[in-house]
């Protein structure tokens, strides 16, 4: 790292300006998320810091919004819906996506590029188009306003994450291990279950987390296809932001930030495990 500092002293100003600029960009990235946390403890129904909060007046801070969301049945039902739809979609997406990644990683796979393109397409298609198309199609099948319809839709939108992550992990998998196991008499299923799966498990779990996070944050399909019974957390937040703005949303947001950090740390931990 000494090479960086050996650049002549004349560049000192520009280097500091560069670091300052980067610091501003990092602040832009992270500050909006951090500012939510203290505001969620606001005792008043405002979206900004009250004078009392700035004086660190104990009365100006409270847990009332947290109490409100815990006691509110709508939010707990939304959480249950989010978890049920998210977990079911994740299981489906992970199973199908892992299988497909195994096939796509095989050099013998015919039309690999085309198949990959199709399988990744749900991720890059604008969600408004997916949601509109699904609304028409699922309505005709009687799947609109059902949990099953949302599970299928979210699974479809989540599979690209699994395919990408598991394919990336398989690129680092030594196929000789499978061959060695097969040469010692293990059938294809045993090879997969006892040798390959344990080794690529970090990638599979990461893909699953990505798929879950995608479903857990999805609002447009739910907006188009879900009824009252299928309201999820993001759907509930959507109406919160649009209709009756209350700091209760900020309390939910803090929960979601905690979730995000947990997902992030898990995926990074798995990635590092996989790299070793």
């Amino acid at each position, binding site marked *: 790292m000494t*090479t960086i500092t050996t650049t002549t002293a004349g560049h000192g100003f520009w280097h500091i300006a*560069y670091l300052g600029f980067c610091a501003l*960009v*990092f602040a*832009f*990235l*992270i500050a*909006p998320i951090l*500012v*939510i946390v203290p505001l969620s403890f606001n005792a008043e129904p405002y*979206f900004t*810091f009250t004078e009392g909060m700035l004086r660190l007046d104990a009365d100006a801070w409270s847990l009332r919004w947290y109490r409100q969301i815990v006691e509110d049945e709508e939010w707990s039902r939304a959480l249950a819906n989010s978890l049920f739809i998210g977990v079911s979609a994740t299981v*489906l997406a992970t199973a*199908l996506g892992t*299988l*497909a990644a195994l*096939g796509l990683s095989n*050099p*013998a*796979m*015919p039309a690999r*590029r085309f198949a990959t*393109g199709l*399988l*990744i*397409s749900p991720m890059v*298609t*604008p*969600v*408004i*188009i*997916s949601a509109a*198309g*699904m609304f*028409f*199609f699922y309505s*005709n099948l009687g799947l609109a306003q059902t949990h099953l319809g949302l599970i299928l839709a979210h699974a*479809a*939108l989540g*599979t690209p994450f699994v*395919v*990408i992550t598991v394919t990336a992990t398989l690129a680092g998998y030594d196929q000789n291990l499978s*061959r060695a196991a097969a040469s010692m008499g293990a059938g294809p299923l045993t090879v997969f279950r006892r040798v390959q799966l344990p080794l690529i498990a970090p990638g599979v779990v990461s893909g699953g987390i990505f798929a879950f*996070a995608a479903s857990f*944050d999805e*609002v*447009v399909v739910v907006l*188009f296809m879900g009824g009252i019974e299928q309201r999820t957390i*993001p759907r509930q*937040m959507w109406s919160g932001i649009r209709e009756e*703005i209350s700091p209760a949303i*900020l309390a939910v*947001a803090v929960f*979601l*930030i905690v*979730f*995000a950090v947990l997902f*992030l740390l898990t995926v*990074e931990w798995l*990635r590092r495990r996989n790299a070793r």
Partner: protein
Amino acid sequence: MSEIPEKEAGRPGSGPRPGPRPWSGPRLRAALLVLPLLAFVGVTFLAPLANMLVRSVYDPVVADALPETLERLRAWDGQGLPDEAVYEALAGEVLAAREDRTLGQVATRVNRVQSGLRSALTRTARRLRNVDEGPWSDAMIGIHAAWGETGTWRALREAGDRYTARHYLNALDLQRDPEGSIAFQPEDRQIYLFLLWRTLLVSLGVTTLCLLIGYPVARLIAHAPPRRANLLLILVLVPFWTSLLVRTTSWIVLLQNQGVLNDMLVYLGVIGDDGRLAMIYNMTGTFVAMTHVLLPFMVLPLYSVMSAIPRVQTSAAESLGATPWQSFWRVYWPQTLPGVGAGCLLVFILAIGYYITPALVGGSTGQLISNLIAFHMQSSLNWSLAAALGGILLVCVAGLYLLYDRLVGIERMRLG
């Protein structure tokens, strides 16, 4: 494909083969693994998209409700008024449609071709019950003057097409004039091209801004010592993982009239209490929030390309007499181009179909083409037009996606 003989060679009893057979063992096995997901995505995702595209050009409602009228209208030369036979057929079919309760759907569609015809149809159907015999043309013109106008019949004929490019024309602010050639809509009815244009400009602007502020940051992370790099990377990944709705809420909290930023500026005396800045529910809000959401998609591909560039190269260039600018521009920048391309394309693809953020913080001036699709899906219920707008957007995205595949390769897409 040369790997196949090599792999096969290791198996007992199978010698080297002349070439891959179409569905030999390994090919079949690989394909069978991919097939379940392909079928699943086909049914749950691709079929809905195809269905939507069909809807954008195919609408049988009017044709099914008024078959005889449309059949007889085909003999009409489009000048003056059609024969009594056409009036008679329409009278019968409008009454039947009223009985089946399909008249509302028919009227809505005809009305979209020429506004005002909804009431003509519904009123005619209501009053015709009291008319027992012809001449039907006099009776209908008596009920509603529209039946005495040539344009009405042209509109009816156009609405009766099962397959039509009308919705695509509409979505591009075009229409057919009475002579059948394609022309722009009157100026005051042009909205879609403007919104498409705005969407393109905003996407370009957001992409450029992301590149300008993302590039230095990615470079800093890529060449920092590992521990610090990890920490800085977390700062990029936390927003990447945080719920979109949470981030949008954050920007509302920060930017709104009584929000944190305005409060701070007033407190510092930069602006007066009555001079609070309107930073949200307009284009500024859309732009800022979109940049925030999409920035990680720029930084991450840049970072992964940059971290593979040996730091010694620029030092070497400088030790050979290059100025820092020269060593950056001639040595460093060209090597980061794959990352620049990947990041820009990804951000642009995501920006062009952006919906949630503009809907929540865009107000009326910050709406993009996606919001218009949602409007036609949920409010105006003009689903064919929504489907056509979706089709146009889909073509744009598909083109960019293919470009991404050619330049970067889809299989090289990474997450986080």
